[in-house]
Structures are given as structure tokens and as C-alpha cells.
């Protein structure tokens, strides 16, 4: 045999010490180092792409949690808001947001004059455009909720327009404003003056978590309220529908199923369903739950049904693994003292397998929370700006879900929505992190070695 079985060449004649490496040996050592390096490079590439992705998303999404707001006192002119003057809500409802926009603009102008801010190069429309189109509606709701406000002067912090918000965050620049029909550089300079005067500034944006979605014209008002609620409803329903069925199926397959063709068929089915693309479940949901059963489109219930079917194989696989991990001696002992097989399973095996089942279930729910494609098909991508009602009826109301909101914002044209989309991902990843940490803690806390 030669010392180089890999090359098949005759061994080189060694001259000198046996400890001195030959060129052939050196080559093999270099190849060894190289191979090792490939592995390290692969890992470094994978992890650095992950890091780049997370950093870009957090960098772009952080802005969604801060929002440009204009702070100035608003004089609620009774002449405009309550022309009849008797503070009756029924009559004041007739004043539309146009009236409130007028009040806002008047107060804004008054504040500018009072603070001596130069507005010479701006038209009235340019100045009014700094205030978000969403602000009059908010003010109207506030006044209608408390009619005694009319006639008073109240300090208010209203949303600035999306472009101004972008300017404060560096997304909109003087150059881009020149090309943009919605904003001009003069307005941006004006915004700078306002910022110096302390009227305009970035504030924490709690509304991002509570507001419903907003139309294309008002990215600054769009929030995740409906999406978070919709996702929450779906997770509750998935937990209620999917977990009992999954656990029951696992118990049957692990503990009772006779070895026959039917059982084999179920086993193969579960394994294959776990690998079916999620969009196929969306088609199933559309055809069966919406077109056939007539359940309402975009509802959390249909979403949860589809996601449940999708998550079921995951839950079954995790549950079966933890049932199998309970040693047979437990079963033998229970059967030995006269328990029935059903009692053995429900009184002894299941409680011992519970931590594993819980961990698997939480991880399954985490996957379910991020599932997007099937929800697009059952109409959850539709624009929903009403909160779904309270359970149980609310499960049938149109809603949307966190990952779907990410997608629908990403497809809108205004770049302000891209920031929102990234912000929504931060929220989504936050929820996933919590669920995964919970699963890890559960596993650490209750893990048992037999």
C-alpha cells in the first residue's frame, strides 16, 4: 500500500527525516485546511446574511415607532363646528371633516403668526398640506365625544403629513422633493423652521400598534391594530381547534391504532401534509370554507380553519414524539394495577407527555403566526379599517393578520408604507421571539430524562 491512497500514484521516495513533511503531505494538509475553511465560510455567509437582513429591517422599521407630530393650540371655533350653537351631538354630526380641517388650518396659521414664523414663500395650500389628512377626522371624533370642548382652545398634537414625517426621518430630501408632486422644497425648509421652533418633532407612536390600517393617502395614520387583533383571534381559534384534534389524533396513532393499512395511510398522509406548500391550503380554504360552506371572506374563523389544517401535521408530529418518549414501564405499571388502557393513557401517559406537547404546540403556533400565503387567498389581504367585533361574533368579521399586513403595505407605492411594513415585521418578530422563548423555558423547566 502507498501512503497516498487518494492519488494512486507511487509513493514519493522519502529523503531525510521521517518527521519532515513531504510536499505531498503538505498538499494534503492544505486541502484539509481548505475543506475546513469551506465549512466556516458557509456558516459565516449564512449568519451574516441573517444579520444583514435583521439589521436592515430593524433599521428601516424603527422609524415606524416614531412619528412626526405638530403641536399647537387649537381653537375650536363654535361658529364652524356648531353653527346652531346648542351643543347637540345630533346637529354637530352634520359638520364633516372639511369643517374641522378649516379649524385646524386656522389655528395652525394663528400659531405661526403668534410665533413669528416666516411663511412668505408658501401658499395657504402648502401650509395646510403639512397637517395630515387624518388629523381632522381625529379632532372630529374627539369633539363629538365631548361636545363641551367647542369654543375652547385646547393644546393638540396632530399628525404631520407622510412626506414631512419622511423628511424628519431622512427618507425625503430636498432633491427628492423637487421631483415629487406632493411636496416642494419650500415646504421642507418651512418644516425645518417649525422643527427649530419646537412645533414639529418626532414623538413615540403608540398609534402604530393600535390604529387600524389607513388609505394610500395617509400612511402616517396607518397602524397594526386590526392586524394584531386578527392574528390574536386566529391564534386563539387555532389553539382551540388544532390542539385538541392534534393531540387526540396522536394518542390514537401512538397508543391504540392497530397496525393495518388504514393506520399506514394516515401516517403517510400526515408526513406528506406537512410538506404540502401552504398556498395549497389557501386554495382548499377558498373552495371548501368560502365557496362551499359559505363562511364569510376575510374572517378570522376561515383564516384559523385554514391555518389549523396547515398546523395540524406539525402538532401531531411533535405530540407523537413526546408520547413516544414516555417509557413503557409507566404504562405497564398502570395496566398492572388494573387501569384500563384509556385510563392509562389519560391519567398517566398524557400528563407526563404534557410539557413536550405544550412546547411542540407553541412552536407550531409560532409557525402558524407567520403563515401568509393561504391568508391571501381567503381575502385577508383586503383593506380593513374597522376593528373586528368582540368574540364570538367578531370571529366572523373581516380582519387581517400581521404577516398579511406586512405584505399589503409592501405592495403599496408610497415608500412611507415600506417603513410601516418593516415596523410590522419588528412587531411580528417580537411576538415570535416571545413564543419561542416561552417554549424554550417550558422545555428547560419540565424536561425529564428517563
Amino acid at each position: 500500500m502507498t501512503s497516498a491512497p487518494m492519488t494512486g500514484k507511487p509513493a514519493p521516495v522519502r529523503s531525510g527525516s521521517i518527521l519532515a513533511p513531504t510536499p505531498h503531505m503538505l498538499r494534503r494538509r492544505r486541502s484539509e485546511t481548505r475543506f475546513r475553511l469551506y465549512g466556516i465560510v458557509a456558516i459565516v455567509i449564512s449568519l451574516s446574511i441573517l444579520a444583514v437582513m435583521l439589521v436592515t429591517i430593524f433599521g428601516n422599521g424603527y422609524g415606524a415607532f416614531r412619528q412626526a407630530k405638530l403641536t399647537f393650540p387649537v381653537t375650536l371655533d363654535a361658529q364652524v363646528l356648531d353653527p346652531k350653537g346648542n351643543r347637540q351631538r345630533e346637529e354637530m354630526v352634520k359638520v364633516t371633516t372639511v369643517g374641522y380641517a378649516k379649524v385646524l388650518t386656522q389655528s395652525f396659521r394663528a400659531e405661526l403668526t403668534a410665533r413669528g414664523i416666516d411663511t412668505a414663500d408658501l401658499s395657504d395650500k402648502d401650509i395646510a398640506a403639512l397637517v395630515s389628512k387624518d388629523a381632522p377626522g381625529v379632532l372630529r371624533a374627539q369633539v363629538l365625544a365631548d361636545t363641551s370642548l367647542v369654543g375652547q382652545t385646547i393644546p393638540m398634537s396632530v399628525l404631520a403629513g407622510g412626506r414631512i414625517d419622511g423628511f424628519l426621518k431622512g427618507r425625503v430630501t430636498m432633491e427628492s422633493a423637487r421631483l415629487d408632486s406632493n411636496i416642494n422644497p419650500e415646504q421642507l425648509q418651512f418644516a425645518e423652521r417649525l422643527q427649530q421652533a419646537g412645533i414639529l418633532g418626532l414623538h413615540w407612536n403608540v398609534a402604530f400598534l393600535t390604529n387600524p390600517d389607513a388609505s394610500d393617502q395617509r400612511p402616517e395614520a396607518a397602524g397594526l391594530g386590526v392586524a394584531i387583533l386578527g392574528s390574536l383571534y386566529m391564534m386563539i381559534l387555532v389553539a382551540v381547534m388544532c390542539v385538541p384534534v392534534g393531540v387526540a389524533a396522536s394518542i390514537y396513532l401512538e397508543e391504540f391504532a392497530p397496525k393495518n393499512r388504514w393506520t399506514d395511510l394516515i401516517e403517510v398522509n400526515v408526513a406528506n401534509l406537512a410538506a404540502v406548500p401552504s398556498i395549497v391550503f389557501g386554495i382548499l380554504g377558498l373552495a371548501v370554507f368560502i365557496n362551499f360552506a359559505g363562511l364569510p371572506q376575510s374572517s378570522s374563523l376561515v383564516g384559523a380553519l385554514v391555518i389549523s389544517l396547515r398546523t395540524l401535521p406539525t402538532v401531531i408530529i411533535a405530540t407523537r414524539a413526546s408520547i413516544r418518549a414516555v417509557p413503557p414501564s409507566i404504562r405497564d405499571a398502570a395496566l398492572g394495577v388494573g387501569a384500563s388502557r384509556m385510563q392509562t393513557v389519560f391519567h398517566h401517559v398524557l400528563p407526563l407527555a404534557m410539557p413536550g406537547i405544550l412546547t411542540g404546540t407553541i412552536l407550531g403556533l409560532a409557525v402558524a403566526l407567520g403563515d401568509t400565503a393561504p391568508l391571501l387567498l381567503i381575502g385577508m389581504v383586503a383593506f380593513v379599517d374597522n376593528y373586528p367585533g368582540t368574540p364570538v361574533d367578531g370571529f366572523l368579521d373581516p380582519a387581517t393578520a400581521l404577516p398579511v399586513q406586512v405584505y399589503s403595505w409592501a405592495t403599496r407605492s408610497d415608500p412611507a408604507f415600506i417603513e410601516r411594513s418593516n415596523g410590522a415585521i419588528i412587531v411580528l418578530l417580537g411576538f415570535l421571539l416571545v413564543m419561542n422563548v416561552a417554549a424554550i423555558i417550558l422545555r428547560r423547566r419540565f424536561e425529564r430524562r428517563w
Partner: protein
Amino acid sequence: MTAFFLLVTILILALVGYILGRVRAMARAGGDARGLHSLPNYYGWHAALMTMLPALAVLILWLIVQPVVIERKVGTLLPPAALETDTAFTLAMDDVRRVAKGLDLAVANGVMTDSDASMIRTEFTDVRERLAQVGVALGSNVSKETLAAAQSYRKLTALGAVGRTIAVLAVALAGLAWALAVTGPKFRARNRVEAIIMGALVIASSIAILTTVGIIWSMLSESLAFFRQYPFTEFFFGLTWSPNFKGGSELGFVPLLWGTLYISLVSMIVAVPLGLFTAIYLAEYASPAVRAVVKPAIEVIAGIPTVVFGLFALMTVGPLLRDWIAAPMGLGNSGSSVMTAGLVIGILNIPFVSSLADDILNAVPQALRDGSYGLGATKSETVKQVVLPAALPGIMGAVLMAASRAIGETMVVAMGAGAAAKLSLNPFEAMTTMTVKIVGQLTGDTDFASPETLVAFALGLTLFVLTLGLNVVALQVVRKYKEQYE
């Protein structure tokens, strides 16, 4: 009583049944549980189940049947034009339901009294305006027939609700009475309860099968409807994809298949080497401490929803490739391209390949490695010439599974690949896939009679068959390989 309230009532009755059944069993046994066949709790469970199950069955059946019956009865009141086609009938029934709901609301808000609502006639009242007062906006004025149908719909629904309550409660009470009647020391309550639980377990485990059946049935029936309208051969061999909802669309499948396969190919070129080298390093070289950190870190990639990768493709990878590679080389100026989607899908498949390959490499017996070291081979020579060949079938299985995932991936391609169906070799051009077109054809306003919508089901079926086939082959390969060492 609403269905939900009825459900709560049934559950309360079941609880009562549990207590009564237990108490009665104890009483019949003279207060001594030893005289009973089963433990006392089983008599309680038996009574509860007997109260609950038949009542629930009746409730569910009623909820399914009632709308069908009412629709048929109310339908006779509609003008003949509404009965001609299914679509016209559905639209007319929607109107009827909306008016009925408006009348309900009007009564609830006190705008009308109950008798008003069932008596008003279009000849004397402007129904549309009255309903607008309570916030029910109607598209057109209410016709005489629609109003009559809506009033009849309301009456029948109210009647149905009363009938439902009576029937369900009667069945629940009958079940309870029967359970209590048979309860006695000799009654084998445990066997009965366990049989019911067993039935529930069997049903639960059949849901997996039902799902598959549902998937196949739903896609097959709609696909057949599609192929009745659009020739089979033109779909599978057509080279142009240009759907047009006005008719005259060309729905050739080949460009979509090409896009799907091209993107999957790019993704496999990324995922397989990176995933495989990661797995080799983790399985053969890494110290336990490194492994304990790196393995979970790689698996974080698998835990991130694909829509996040989609946004990453759209926002970062696409523009990067366009500005640094495609545009300078004159290969195109589109941010979304085969390359963008392929790269990103490749990244999200890395942990999938690496963790499967890692398991397979770890399953290769240590004796093989030791034998190789004994012959003087270095570690890399052992991996390349002994471990990898031994693990090859399993790794092939893992690669096939990753390919099936790449083919079925939706969000990344929807956001990063573009929407134009093209047959081109340039990887920097936007192309599209089957999944993107399924989403495209099925979202928004859809008409489930037109081939442009139905084609999505044919695409779905093809996708299902393709991924399932890959998976069956992969599972087979993995299983075969496992047997070698066990």
C-alpha cells in the same frame, strides 16, 4: 335564542347531567361506590355525554339545513328573472338578506315596530330611506317582491330559531332522561364512555385524511371545470400566458413552469453548498461548544416567516443586484428578478438542508470513520470519500425536500420575482411562478365561472402533484437509506 347561547345552554345541561348521573349512580348503589360496575365519575360522564352529543348533532344539522330550506321557500316569492341562473338567484338572495337584516336593525333601534316591519309595503313606504336611517345602505330601491321575500325570510328565520331551540333542548333532555334511566349498579358506564372517547380519537386522526381528500376534491373539481372551458393541451403546452378577464386569454403553463423551475434551480445552487458545508462543519469539525451556539443560530433562519424574506428581497437584495450587477452589465434594470427570488429562497432553505443533512451525517456509524482514519486518511478525505458517499442517498432526499419547498414558496416570489410570465434565460429578468399566479388569479374580484379564475385551481393541482411527488420520492430514499445501518 342564538346558536351560541343554545350551545352554552347545552353545556350547562351537560354539567347538570354529570352531577345528576353521579348522584343517581351512588344512590342506586346505596351510597357505596364498591357496588358499582364503574367508578362513579364514569356515570356522570355518561350522562353528560348523552345530554350533549345528540343535542349538538341536532343543532349542527339544523344550522346546515335551515338556510337551505328557507332559501328554497323564499325563492318562490322572487320574480322569475331571478330564478333563471344561479348567479342571479344568489344576488337576489343577497338583497333579500340585506333587507331582512335592515328590518331587524330598524326594529332593534326602535325606528319601526315589529308589526310595522312585517306589514310595510313598497307602495306606501320608502323602504330604502327608512333603512338608510339605521345605517343599512341599499344599492337600489327595494322591489315589491324583494320586500315580500325579505319579510317572509324574517318570519321563517324567527320560526326556525324557535323550532331549533325547542328541538335541541328536547333532545338534550331526552338524552339526559335516558342516561339517568339506565344508570344502575350493573350498568357498564366506563365501557360506554371509553367507546365514545375512542370514537372521538378515531375521528380526530381521520381529519388528516379528510384534509387530503378535501384538497384533492376541491382542486380536481374546479380543475375539471377549467379543462371543460379551456383545452387541456393548450394549457400544458401553451407558450404564452396572457390572461384577460374580458375573454380570449391565452393560459399557457410552460412559462410559469419555466419560471418556477429556474428560480428553484438558482435557490438550490445557493442552498445546497451552503447548507451542506454548514452541516459537514457542524457534524464533523465543530466542538460541542461551537455547535451549541451555531446550530440554533442557523435554525433562527428557519423560524423567520417567509414574508420577512420577501420584504428583504424586495427592499434590499433586488435593488442591490440591479444596481451592482444587472445594470452595469446591461442585463436588465428590474429589481425583481429570477436571481433576487432565487437567492433569497436559497437563503431561507439553508437551515432546512443543513439540519436534515446534519441528522443524516450523524447517523453514519462512527466505525466507518474510524476505519478510514486507521488507514491514514485525513478528516477531509474521510468526509469526502467515506462519510459523504455513505450519506449520499439521505442527502439526496434532503435536497429533493428542499427543492419541493422552493417550488411551493409563495411570498418571496410574490414580492421578489415579478409578475411577467416570460421564457427567457436571463436570470436578471423578472419572471413569474405558479404560486404567484395562483395568488394573482384568486385575489381581488373573482368570478368562479371564468377560466381566468379557474386556471388557478389547475395550477394548484399541478403544484400539489409536483411537490407531493418530490416528497414521496424523498421520503422513500431516506427510508431506504436508514435501513442500511439499523
